[in-house]
Protein backbone atom coordinates (compact mmCIF):
# COMPACT_ATOMS: atom_id res chain seq x y z
CA UNK A 1 0.00 0.00 0.00
CA UNK A 2 3.07 2.19 0.20
CA UNK A 3 3.43 1.99 -3.58
CA UNK A 4 3.54 5.42 -5.21
CA UNK A 5 1.15 4.19 -7.86
CA UNK A 6 -1.54 3.13 -5.39
CA UNK A 7 -2.74 6.71 -4.80
CA UNK A 8 -2.76 7.51 -8.50
CA UNK A 9 -4.45 4.22 -9.32
CA UNK A 10 -7.42 4.63 -6.97
CA UNK A 11 -7.82 8.34 -7.86
CA UNK A 12 -7.88 7.69 -11.60
CA UNK A 13 -9.93 4.54 -11.17
CA UNK A 14 -12.54 6.29 -9.03
CA UNK A 15 -12.75 9.20 -11.44
CA UNK A 16 -13.17 6.82 -14.35
CA UNK A 17 -15.93 5.06 -12.43
CA UNK A 18 -17.56 8.44 -11.66
CA UNK A 19 -17.59 9.50 -15.32
CA UNK A 20 -18.91 6.09 -16.35
CA UNK A 21 -21.68 6.21 -13.75
CA UNK A 22 -22.72 9.70 -14.85
CA UNK A 23 -23.04 8.45 -18.43
CA UNK A 24 -25.13 5.48 -17.29
CA UNK A 25 -27.36 7.37 -14.87
CA UNK A 26 -28.10 10.76 -16.40
CA UNK A 27 -28.83 12.57 -13.17
CA UNK A 28 -27.15 15.88 -12.30
CA UNK A 29 -26.40 14.83 -8.72
CA UNK A 30 -24.23 12.06 -10.17
CA UNK A 31 -21.19 14.28 -10.27
CA UNK A 32 -17.98 12.42 -11.25
CA UNK A 33 -15.82 14.48 -8.89
CA UNK A 34 -18.15 13.97 -5.93
CA UNK A 35 -18.45 10.25 -6.62
CA UNK A 36 -14.70 9.79 -6.90
CA UNK A 37 -13.98 11.78 -3.70
CA UNK A 38 -16.42 9.61 -1.73
CA UNK A 39 -15.12 6.44 -3.34
CA UNK A 40 -11.47 7.23 -2.57
CA UNK A 41 -12.32 8.05 1.06
CA UNK A 42 -14.25 4.79 1.41
CA UNK A 43 -11.40 2.79 -0.14
CA UNK A 44 -8.81 4.41 2.15
CA UNK A 45 -10.91 3.83 5.26
CA UNK A 46 -11.76 0.23 4.33
CA UNK A 47 -8.19 -0.64 3.40
CA UNK A 48 -6.82 1.15 6.45
CA UNK A 49 -4.48 3.28 4.33
CA UNK A 50 -3.41 6.60 5.84
CA UNK A 51 -3.89 9.89 4.02
CA UNK A 52 -0.12 10.39 4.01
CA UNK A 53 0.65 7.18 2.16
CA UNK A 54 -2.22 7.85 -0.27
CA UNK A 55 -0.78 11.33 -0.91
CA UNK A 56 2.63 9.91 -1.78
CA UNK A 57 1.16 8.95 -5.12
CA UNK A 58 -1.87 11.22 -5.36
CA UNK A 59 0.39 14.27 -5.06
CA UNK A 60 1.44 13.67 -8.66
CA UNK A 61 -2.11 14.36 -9.80
CA UNK A 62 -2.24 17.45 -7.59
CA UNK A 63 0.98 18.80 -9.09
CA UNK A 64 -0.79 19.10 -12.46
CA UNK A 65 -3.28 21.57 -11.04
CA UNK A 66 -1.03 24.62 -11.49
CA UNK A 67 -0.29 23.95 -15.19
CA UNK A 68 -3.96 23.09 -15.79
CA UNK A 69 -5.16 26.32 -14.18
CA UNK A 70 -2.68 28.30 -16.28
CA UNK A 71 -4.18 26.66 -19.39
CA UNK A 72 -7.48 28.42 -18.61
CA UNK A 73 -5.78 31.45 -20.18
CA UNK A 74 -6.38 29.88 -23.62
CA UNK A 75 -10.22 29.86 -23.58
CA UNK A 76 -10.07 33.23 -21.84
CA UNK A 77 -7.92 34.70 -24.63
CA UNK A 78 -10.28 33.34 -27.27
CA UNK A 79 -13.11 35.44 -25.78
CA UNK A 80 -11.04 38.57 -25.19
CA UNK A 81 -13.05 40.73 -27.64
CA UNK A 82 -16.29 39.84 -25.90
CA UNK A 83 -14.64 40.65 -22.60
CA UNK A 84 -13.51 44.09 -23.77
CA UNK A 85 -17.01 44.85 -25.03
CA UNK A 86 -18.63 43.90 -21.71
CA UNK A 87 -15.96 44.94 -19.27
CA UNK A 88 -18.30 47.07 -17.14
CA UNK A 89 -20.74 44.23 -16.57
CA UNK A 90 -17.90 41.81 -15.89
CA UNK A 91 -16.22 44.04 -13.32
CA UNK A 92 -19.55 44.89 -11.63
CA UNK A 93 -20.47 41.21 -11.48
CA UNK A 94 -17.18 40.01 -10.02
CA UNK A 95 -16.98 42.82 -7.43
CA UNK A 96 -20.54 42.21 -6.30
CA UNK A 97 -19.69 38.51 -6.05
CA UNK A 98 -16.70 39.12 -3.77
CA UNK A 99 -18.63 41.58 -1.62
CA UNK A 100 -21.70 39.32 -1.30
CA UNK A 101 -19.44 36.41 -0.36
CA UNK A 102 -17.80 38.33 2.47
CA UNK A 103 -21.03 39.93 3.70
CA UNK A 104 -22.93 36.64 3.71
CA UNK A 105 -20.11 34.96 5.65
CA UNK A 106 -20.15 37.82 8.19
CA UNK A 107 -23.95 37.60 8.57
CA UNK A 108 -23.93 33.84 9.09
CA UNK A 109 -20.88 33.97 11.36
CA UNK A 110 -22.78 36.39 13.62
CA UNK A 111 -25.88 34.18 13.52
CA UNK A 112 -23.94 31.07 14.54
CA UNK A 113 -21.63 32.88 17.02
CA UNK A 114 -18.41 31.89 15.25
CA UNK A 115 -15.11 32.80 16.89
CA UNK A 116 -12.50 34.73 14.91
CA UNK A 117 -10.67 31.60 13.70
CA UNK A 118 -13.81 29.91 12.32
CA UNK A 119 -14.93 33.18 10.76
CA UNK A 120 -11.73 33.81 8.81
CA UNK A 121 -11.66 30.14 7.78
CA UNK A 122 -14.80 30.79 5.73
CA UNK A 123 -13.85 34.21 4.33
CA UNK A 124 -12.02 32.91 1.23
CA UNK A 125 -14.49 30.07 0.56
CA UNK A 126 -15.47 31.11 -2.95
CA UNK A 127 -11.96 31.55 -4.35
CA UNK A 128 -9.44 29.08 -5.68
CA UNK A 129 -7.80 26.79 -3.11
CA UNK A 130 -4.26 28.03 -3.62
CA UNK A 131 -5.19 31.65 -2.81
CA UNK A 132 -7.75 30.72 -0.17
CA UNK A 133 -5.34 28.75 2.00
CA UNK A 134 -2.88 31.65 1.88
CA UNK A 135 -5.58 34.08 3.07
CA UNK A 136 -6.71 31.80 5.92
CA UNK A 137 -3.15 31.20 7.05
CA UNK A 138 -2.40 34.89 7.15
CA UNK A 139 -5.57 35.76 9.07
CA UNK A 140 -5.19 32.91 11.57
CA UNK A 141 -7.89 30.40 10.54
CA UNK A 142 -7.92 26.60 10.17
CA UNK A 143 -6.17 25.91 6.86
CA UNK A 144 -7.25 22.24 6.42
CA UNK A 145 -10.87 23.24 7.04
CA UNK A 146 -10.60 26.03 4.46
CA UNK A 147 -9.40 23.48 1.89
CA UNK A 148 -12.41 21.26 2.54
CA UNK A 149 -14.88 24.17 2.57
CA UNK A 150 -13.47 25.59 -0.69
CA UNK A 151 -13.67 22.23 -2.41
CA UNK A 152 -17.20 21.54 -1.19
CA UNK A 153 -18.20 25.04 -2.37
CA UNK A 154 -16.78 24.16 -5.78
CA UNK A 155 -18.58 20.84 -5.90
CA UNK A 156 -21.88 22.51 -4.90
CA UNK A 157 -21.40 25.01 -7.74
CA UNK A 158 -20.48 22.25 -10.15
CA UNK A 159 -23.57 20.18 -9.31
CA UNK A 160 -26.24 22.85 -8.88
CA UNK A 161 -25.10 25.72 -11.15
CA UNK A 162 -27.23 24.78 -14.18
CA UNK A 163 -30.45 24.35 -12.20
CA UNK A 164 -29.90 27.36 -9.94
CA UNK A 165 -29.07 29.76 -12.79
CA UNK A 166 -32.20 28.65 -14.61
CA UNK A 167 -34.24 29.20 -11.44
CA UNK A 168 -32.83 32.72 -11.08
CA UNK A 169 -33.50 33.48 -14.78
CA UNK A 170 -29.82 34.16 -15.41
CA UNK A 171 -29.65 33.54 -19.14
CA UNK A 172 -26.79 35.65 -20.54
CA UNK A 173 -23.78 33.35 -21.13
CA UNK A 174 -21.45 36.01 -19.73
CA UNK A 175 -23.53 36.36 -16.57
CA UNK A 176 -23.63 32.56 -16.15
CA UNK A 177 -19.86 32.34 -16.41
CA UNK A 178 -19.25 35.17 -13.95
CA UNK A 179 -21.75 33.67 -11.50
CA UNK A 180 -20.11 30.25 -11.61
CA UNK A 181 -16.52 31.47 -11.44
CA UNK A 182 -17.18 33.98 -8.65
CA UNK A 183 -19.05 31.48 -6.49
CA UNK A 184 -17.31 28.20 -7.13
CA UNK A 185 -13.85 28.92 -8.64
CA UNK A 186 -12.01 26.28 -10.70
CA UNK A 187 -14.24 23.31 -9.82
CA UNK A 188 -17.30 25.26 -10.93
CA UNK A 189 -15.39 26.43 -14.00
CA UNK A 190 -15.06 22.85 -15.25
CA UNK A 191 -18.87 22.83 -15.39
CA UNK A 192 -18.92 26.26 -17.08
CA UNK A 193 -16.57 24.83 -19.73
CA UNK A 194 -19.12 22.11 -20.46
CA UNK A 195 -21.90 24.70 -20.75
CA UNK A 196 -20.10 26.73 -23.41
CA UNK A 197 -16.98 28.59 -24.53
CA UNK A 198 -18.20 31.99 -23.29
CA UNK A 199 -19.32 30.61 -19.92
CA UNK A 200 -15.96 28.87 -19.50
CA UNK A 201 -13.91 31.92 -20.42
CA UNK A 202 -15.83 34.27 -18.12
CA UNK A 203 -15.68 31.75 -15.30
CA UNK A 204 -11.90 31.45 -15.73
CA UNK A 205 -11.57 35.21 -15.60
CA UNK A 206 -13.63 35.37 -12.41
CA UNK A 207 -11.26 32.93 -10.69
CA UNK A 208 -8.34 35.26 -11.28
CA UNK A 209 -10.04 38.59 -10.56
CA UNK A 210 -12.17 37.54 -7.58
CA UNK A 211 -9.21 35.66 -6.12
CA UNK A 212 -7.00 38.73 -6.19
CA UNK A 213 -9.71 41.12 -4.92
CA UNK A 214 -10.53 38.72 -2.08
CA UNK A 215 -6.91 38.76 -0.87
CA UNK A 216 -7.28 42.45 -0.08
CA UNK A 217 -10.98 42.51 0.84
CA UNK A 218 -10.61 39.60 3.29
CA UNK A 219 -7.82 41.25 5.23
CA UNK A 220 -9.90 44.45 5.32
CA UNK A 221 -12.94 42.65 6.79
CA UNK A 222 -10.98 40.23 9.00
CA UNK A 223 -11.33 42.41 12.10
CA UNK A 224 -15.15 42.36 12.05
CA UNK A 225 -15.34 39.25 14.24
Amino acid at each position, binding site marked *: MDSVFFGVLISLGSYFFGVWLKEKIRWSLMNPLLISIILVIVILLCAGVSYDSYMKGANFIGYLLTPATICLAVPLYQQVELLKKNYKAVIAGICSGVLSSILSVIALAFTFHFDHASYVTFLPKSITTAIGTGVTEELGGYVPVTVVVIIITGVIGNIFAEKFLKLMHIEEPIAKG*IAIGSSSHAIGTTKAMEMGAIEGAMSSLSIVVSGIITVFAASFFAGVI
Partner: protein
Amino acid sequence: MPCRDWEDGGNNRGLYFEVMKFVIQFLIIIGFSFVGEFFHYVIPLPIPASIYGIVLLSVSLECKLLKVNDVRDVSSFLIAVMPMMFIPAAVGLITSWDIISGSLVKYVVVTFVTTFVVMGVSGLVTQVVIRRGKSK
Protein backbone atom coordinates in the same frame (compact mmCIF):
# COMPACT_ATOMS: atom_id res chain seq x y z
CA MET B 1 -2.27 7.91 -39.78
CA PRO B 2 -0.90 4.91 -41.73
CA CYS B 3 2.38 4.29 -39.91
CA ARG B 4 2.42 4.55 -36.12
CA ASP B 5 5.51 2.44 -35.58
CA TRP B 6 7.45 3.70 -32.58
CA GLU B 7 10.35 1.33 -33.21
CA ASP B 8 11.49 2.49 -36.63
CA GLY B 9 14.37 4.46 -35.17
CA GLY B 10 12.72 7.83 -35.70
CA ASN B 11 12.65 7.61 -39.49
CA ASN B 12 8.99 8.52 -39.58
CA ARG B 13 9.01 12.32 -39.96
CA GLY B 14 5.26 12.70 -39.38
CA LEU B 15 5.47 10.90 -36.09
CA TYR B 16 8.54 12.92 -35.15
CA PHE B 17 6.65 16.18 -35.58
CA GLU B 18 3.62 14.76 -33.82
CA VAL B 19 5.70 13.86 -30.76
CA MET B 20 7.64 17.11 -30.80
CA LYS B 21 4.43 19.12 -30.95
CA PHE B 22 3.21 17.65 -27.67
CA VAL B 23 6.61 17.91 -26.00
CA ILE B 24 6.94 21.57 -26.95
CA GLN B 25 3.40 22.45 -25.88
CA PHE B 26 3.90 20.77 -22.53
CA LEU B 27 7.28 22.47 -22.19
CA ILE B 28 5.71 25.90 -22.74
CA ILE B 29 2.97 25.28 -20.17
CA ILE B 30 5.43 23.96 -17.58
CA GLY B 31 7.64 26.97 -18.36
CA PHE B 32 4.79 29.31 -17.43
CA SER B 33 4.21 27.29 -14.26
CA PHE B 34 7.87 27.70 -13.37
CA VAL B 35 7.88 31.46 -13.98
CA GLY B 36 4.64 31.67 -11.96
CA GLU B 37 6.34 29.88 -9.07
CA PHE B 38 9.22 32.32 -9.34
CA PHE B 39 6.87 35.32 -9.10
CA HIS B 40 5.13 33.71 -6.14
CA TYR B 41 8.47 33.23 -4.43
CA VAL B 42 9.68 36.79 -5.06
CA ILE B 43 6.46 38.76 -4.48
CA PRO B 44 5.29 38.68 -0.83
CA LEU B 45 1.55 38.30 -1.53
CA PRO B 46 -0.64 35.21 -0.97
CA ILE B 47 -1.17 34.93 -4.73
CA PRO B 48 -0.29 31.47 -6.05
CA ALA B 49 1.85 30.54 -9.05
CA SER B 50 -1.22 29.54 -11.08
CA ILE B 51 -2.65 33.07 -10.98
CA TYR B 52 0.62 34.67 -12.10
CA GLY B 53 0.84 31.98 -14.78
CA ILE B 54 -2.67 32.54 -16.13
CA VAL B 55 -2.06 36.31 -16.32
CA LEU B 56 1.33 35.85 -18.02
CA LEU B 57 -0.02 33.35 -20.56
CA SER B 58 -3.00 35.62 -21.35
CA VAL B 59 -0.67 38.58 -21.87
CA SER B 60 1.67 36.50 -24.05
CA LEU B 61 -1.25 35.40 -26.25
CA GLU B 62 -2.67 38.92 -26.41
CA CYS B 63 0.74 40.40 -27.34
CA LYS B 64 1.21 37.67 -30.02
CA LEU B 65 4.35 36.34 -28.33
CA LEU B 66 2.62 32.96 -28.54
CA LYS B 67 -0.07 31.58 -30.83
CA VAL B 68 -2.99 29.57 -29.48
CA ASN B 69 -1.76 26.69 -31.68
CA ASP B 70 1.47 26.59 -29.66
CA VAL B 71 -0.39 25.31 -26.61
CA ARG B 72 -3.81 24.21 -27.89
CA ASP B 73 -3.70 20.40 -27.68
CA VAL B 74 -2.02 20.00 -24.32
CA SER B 75 -4.04 22.79 -22.72
CA SER B 76 -7.32 21.28 -23.95
CA PHE B 77 -6.27 17.96 -22.46
CA LEU B 78 -5.25 19.43 -19.10
CA ILE B 79 -8.49 21.43 -18.83
CA ALA B 80 -10.56 18.37 -19.74
CA VAL B 81 -9.08 16.22 -16.97
CA MET B 82 -8.88 19.08 -14.45
CA PRO B 83 -11.73 17.94 -12.15
CA MET B 84 -9.72 14.82 -11.36
CA MET B 85 -6.86 16.90 -9.97
CA PHE B 86 -9.00 18.09 -7.06
CA ILE B 87 -9.51 14.57 -5.70
CA PRO B 88 -6.31 14.40 -3.56
CA ALA B 89 -6.96 17.72 -1.77
CA ALA B 90 -10.63 16.88 -1.22
CA VAL B 91 -9.75 13.51 0.32
CA GLY B 92 -7.87 15.59 2.92
CA LEU B 93 -11.33 15.88 4.50
CA ILE B 94 -10.50 12.71 6.45
CA THR B 95 -7.61 14.45 8.22
CA SER B 96 -9.59 17.53 9.30
CA TRP B 97 -12.75 15.60 10.16
CA ASP B 98 -12.10 16.03 13.91
CA ILE B 99 -12.21 19.84 13.69
CA ILE B 100 -15.23 19.84 11.39
CA SER B 101 -17.45 17.20 12.99
CA GLY B 102 -18.15 19.35 16.09
CA SER B 103 -19.86 22.13 14.11
CA LEU B 104 -20.81 20.11 11.04
CA VAL B 105 -24.35 21.45 10.61
CA LYS B 106 -23.30 25.11 10.94
CA TYR B 107 -20.43 24.62 8.51
CA VAL B 108 -22.64 22.90 5.95
CA VAL B 109 -25.30 25.64 6.20
CA VAL B 110 -22.72 28.44 5.77
CA THR B 111 -21.11 26.68 2.82
CA PHE B 112 -24.36 26.04 0.96
CA VAL B 113 -26.05 29.39 1.66
CA THR B 114 -23.08 31.61 0.76
CA THR B 115 -22.37 29.68 -2.45
CA PHE B 116 -25.89 30.30 -3.74
CA VAL B 117 -25.92 33.92 -2.53
CA VAL B 118 -22.70 34.66 -4.44
CA MET B 119 -23.85 32.84 -7.56
CA GLY B 120 -27.20 34.65 -7.57
CA VAL B 121 -25.87 38.12 -6.82
CA SER B 122 -22.91 38.10 -9.24
CA GLY B 123 -24.98 36.54 -12.02
CA LEU B 124 -27.89 38.94 -11.67
CA VAL B 125 -25.66 42.03 -11.39
CA THR B 126 -23.75 41.01 -14.54
CA GLN B 127 -26.97 40.33 -16.43
CA VAL B 128 -28.60 43.61 -15.40
CA VAL B 129 -25.56 45.66 -16.53
CA ILE B 130 -25.35 43.77 -19.87
CA ARG B 131 -29.04 44.20 -20.63
CA ARG B 132 -29.01 47.87 -19.66
CA GLY B 133 -26.12 48.37 -22.10
CA LYS B 134 -28.06 46.57 -24.87
CA SER B 135 -31.26 48.53 -24.45
CA LYS B 136 -29.53 51.89 -24.84
